[in-house]
């Protein structure tokens, strides 16, 4: 308290000294000046105060208090809620805390033209945002994911790969829905990929299609939807444990939920090494536009499985992915600047995102039931693992596991669910490549 009073006293002293200094300068100018300046001398005391007041006024006009809009305040509160959710409820804190901080950073009100905002060329945030706009961060994240992922359950049971493809129905259904709601083709494509439940893929595709730079055939510029799409994708990924279980209970009967799958066979190291190379060749030959994503994914996996590059794999799955996640989270959060983010489009995107997750989950579950008709006895699959076909690694696999345990406490589905889970990643990257090659 004492310090506050002291600081206040010093400040007021400085303000009282200023007129004295100001008077001197003014009178000296009056001596050498014209009649106009002499009139200034007459009311110089007032003018100095006026000047000081004006200075404070201009300063005030530069502060956040003067420029704050209700949109900014709403977004800042949302940012704080994100941080709170991340800390208190442990909902994907590694994502929500950077994004929440980014939302606050991006919505601090400022005067345009001083290279502060993320959308002003030359600002620091703009340089960091470059990695998002040009789609640099997502492939680096995929490199780390590849170096983390164990594809052995997929190699042991390749038919589960189809579940990952079935869940991509969500992508294309949302794409159609967005078209019906009046979005352009590229924008709709970028919105659809939310159904892929894969944050990096969604950012990659939206940075290519709905980046606010591309010009459409009819001369209009596409909207910048990277912020809303990324936020929608990540927040629904965090909500997978809420969205999926009711759908599972709705679509899968109690007996089906109890199906036990035989344990996956042991996979040799040779197969694990061959997998990334062959999968890289096959998938990128089919969908070359997905090259940055799939190339990095399988490259990271090869680093892990080759057994010779443990150091590189270790860096990719720990330090590198952490660095990129920090930059990606903060800049994606900051891209939600209120005047660009709070629009009707963002609301529509959030609605479509929820629907796409529902459709993707249903697609996976129903396709798993469909597959079960052709499988006999031991080979039957538990339809619950179809829900893991939406990527959201590894949350959806974990949700499947928990649901399985609820109906049969000794039925462990985690390993089986990882197979459609990782094939969902591959599937959504391929889908992104296809959409990009159609609309890019």
């Amino acid at each position: 308290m004492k310090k506050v009073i002291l600081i206040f006293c010093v400040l007021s002293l400085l303000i009282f000294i200023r007129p004295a200094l100001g008077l001197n300068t003014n009178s000296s100018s009056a001596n050498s000046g014209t009649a106009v300046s002499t009139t200034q001398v007459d009311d110089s005391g007032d003018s100095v105060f006026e000047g000081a007041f004006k200075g404070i006024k201009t300063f005030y006009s530069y502060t956040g208090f003067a420029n704050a809009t209700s949109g900014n305040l709403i977004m800042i509160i949302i940012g704080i809620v994100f941080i709170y959710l991340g800390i208190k409820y442990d909902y994907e804190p590694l994502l929500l805390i950077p994004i929440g901080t980014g939302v606050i950073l991006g919505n601090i009100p400022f005067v345009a033209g001083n290279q502060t905002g993320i959308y002003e060329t030359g600002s620091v945030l703009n340089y960091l945002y470059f990695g998002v706009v040009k789609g640099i961060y997502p492939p680096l994240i995929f490199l780390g994911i590849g170096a983390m992922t164990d594809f052995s359950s997929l190699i042991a049971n390749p038919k589960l790969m189809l579940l990952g493809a079935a869940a991509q129905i969500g992508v294309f259904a949302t794409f159609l829905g967005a078209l019906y709601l009046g979005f352009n083709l590229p924008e709709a494509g970028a919105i659809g990929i939310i159904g892929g439940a894969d944050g990096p893929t969604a950012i990659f595709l939206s940075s290519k299609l709905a980046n606010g730079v591309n010009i459409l055939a009819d001369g209009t510029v596409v909207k910048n939807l990277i912020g809303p799409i990324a936020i929608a994708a990540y927040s629904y990924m965090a909500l997978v444990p809420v969205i999926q279980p009711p759908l599972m209970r709705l679509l899968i009967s109690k007996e089906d939920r109890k199906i036990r799958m035989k344990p996956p066979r042991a996979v040799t190291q040779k197969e694990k090494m061959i997998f990334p190379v062959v999968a890289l060749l096959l998938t990128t030959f089919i969908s070359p536009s997905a090259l940055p994503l799939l190339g990095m994914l399988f490259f990271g996996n090869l680093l892990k499985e080759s057994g010779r590059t443990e150091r590189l794999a270790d860096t990719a799955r720990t330090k590198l992915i952490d660095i990129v996640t920090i930059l990606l989270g903060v800049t994606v959060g900051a891209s939600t600047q209120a005047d660009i983010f709070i629009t009707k489009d963002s609301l529509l995107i959030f609605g479509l995102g929820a629907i796409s997750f529902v459709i993707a989950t249903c697609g996976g579950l129903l396709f798993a039931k469909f597959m079960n008709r052709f499988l006999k006895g031991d080979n039957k699959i538990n339809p619950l693992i179809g829900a893991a076909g939406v990527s959201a690694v590894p949350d959806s696999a974990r949700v499947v596991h928990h649901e399985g345990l609820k109906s049969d406490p000794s039925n462990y589905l985690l390993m089986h669910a990882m197979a459609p889970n990782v094939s969902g990643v591959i599937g959504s990257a391929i889908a992104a490549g296809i959409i990009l090659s159609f609309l890019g």
Partner: protein
Amino acid sequence: MTVLPLFTDQISEGYVILITGLLIVFSALVTLALFFNFGLPVLLYVYKIITKRKDKKISEIKVEADRDFTGEIAAAIGAAVHMYLDQQHDHESAILTIKQVKKPYSPWSSKIYGTQNRL
């Protein structure tokens, strides 16, 4: 009126993308699945022929060099390791419990620049 055909055009193109996209995604993952179901065993078999060496299973690996290594020896080693690890905490460094008191140097507390001994 001019907007309407454009609108329906977009929707129809959307359906084209929907169908082809789904087909391609499925076909890509089906080829992957087929390859790993049928192609990979062939590949591994060919590799085996090229290298002309059978992959050894664990049961086939014979332990000849370690014939003298009996269960008793293993038990003895195991017991020794166990005892060693068990006793290890007895030899902990005693310094751990005593923290060195840090006295950062400051001219205010200096013994050199006192009033008694002028430089």
